[in-house]
């Protein structure tokens, strides 16, 4: 069964997934970079704790939306980075459209003045 693009009943999870997929659009990143960038670019509103980040990353990896790539960096040891798969890129685009539609409706409601 296909996953819903944005789950209104679980907005936090949908929001976190959308952030991760969006940050990976520009290229592969390590887990800590995703957390760091999300915090920096979100003006502190989207500060990921690693505890929240890794289960989401690993789930997206299992679903084939992102791909975990291990690289051996000599004395620094092994490092894992994540990249969007083709399916993930398509999913991210559709998810972005769903977010736009959802936020449009939401703002339409809360923006109405009596």
């Amino acid at each position, binding site marked *: 069964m296909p996953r819903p693009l944005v789950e209104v009943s679980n907005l936090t999870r949908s929001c976190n997934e959308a952030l991760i997929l969006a940050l990976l659009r520009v290229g592969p990143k390590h887990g*800590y970079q995703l957390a760091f960038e999300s915090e920096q670019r979100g003006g502190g509103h989207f500060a990921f704790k690693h505890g929240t980040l890794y*289960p989401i990353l690993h789930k997206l990896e299992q679903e084939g939306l992102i791909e975990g790539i291990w690289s051996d960096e000599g004395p620094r040891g092994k490092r894992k980075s994540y990249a969007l798969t083709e399916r993930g890129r398509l999913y991210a685009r559709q998810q972005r459209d769903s977010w736009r539609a959802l936020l449009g409706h939401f703002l339409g409601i809360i923006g109405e003045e009596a």
Partner: protein
Amino acid sequence: MDRPSQSERLQDALREIEERLAIPQPARTRVLLELHADLEDLSRLYREQGLPADVAEKRALESLDLSPAALAGLAAVHANPVRRVLDRLSAQARGRIERAALAVVMLSAVGLVLPLVTSGKIFRAAGPFLWPTLALCLLALAVGLIKLYQLYVVQDHTPRRVQGQLHTPLALAAVQVGCGFAGMYGHFFLAYLRSRSAPDESTVHLTRALLGSAGLLTIALLGALISALIWFLAANKAAAIERHEAALRFPRRDASRTVPTAPRQ
């Protein structure tokens, strides 16, 4: 008191995570490797931003914050598919499914083997190696049934009684299987000796050895299965008794107002 060095602090944090992380291998090691690498890199990033090394590492560790809920999330992602399905079921439903599965296994085993056993053919085919295997099976049955009688009927729950001879049926089940395989070897060795003295009849001897081995192994495995099931029932009951004892002696803080009830018979 000495302050832990940077690497020691990281190692301590990862050791603590490793102890709390309920993920099967090799995923467990991979998760730890990833966390370790990211912690190092994040700490380096903070240093590059001008934070002192000590503060940078502390801040990286703070950002890790693997709460019990996060660890449970990781464990859920990495659990095998069967485990994930079972986790979605309530404890009650799981108990029912486990009991039903056990009953199906027992009934299937009995249904498949009973006609063979009652016809007596299997015993005749099994040859002389049958007797030690049967003796072990009967011994395991006797020990196991006495144990079940103690636990379920007499309800003698003194620790020595509960644990005494608890695992003997399982050990005897393993010996039965070993005996079955040794007998199989014996059948083939005899067939070899007979074929050497009468090469023309080697096919007959080999066929007899195959039939004998099949019969013997069936009896040995069936005996082992029954012994293991008896052990399973006894071990579960013993564990329930011990859990009940522990709950009485060391009540949980959140369940302190709940008086534990006696284990189900």
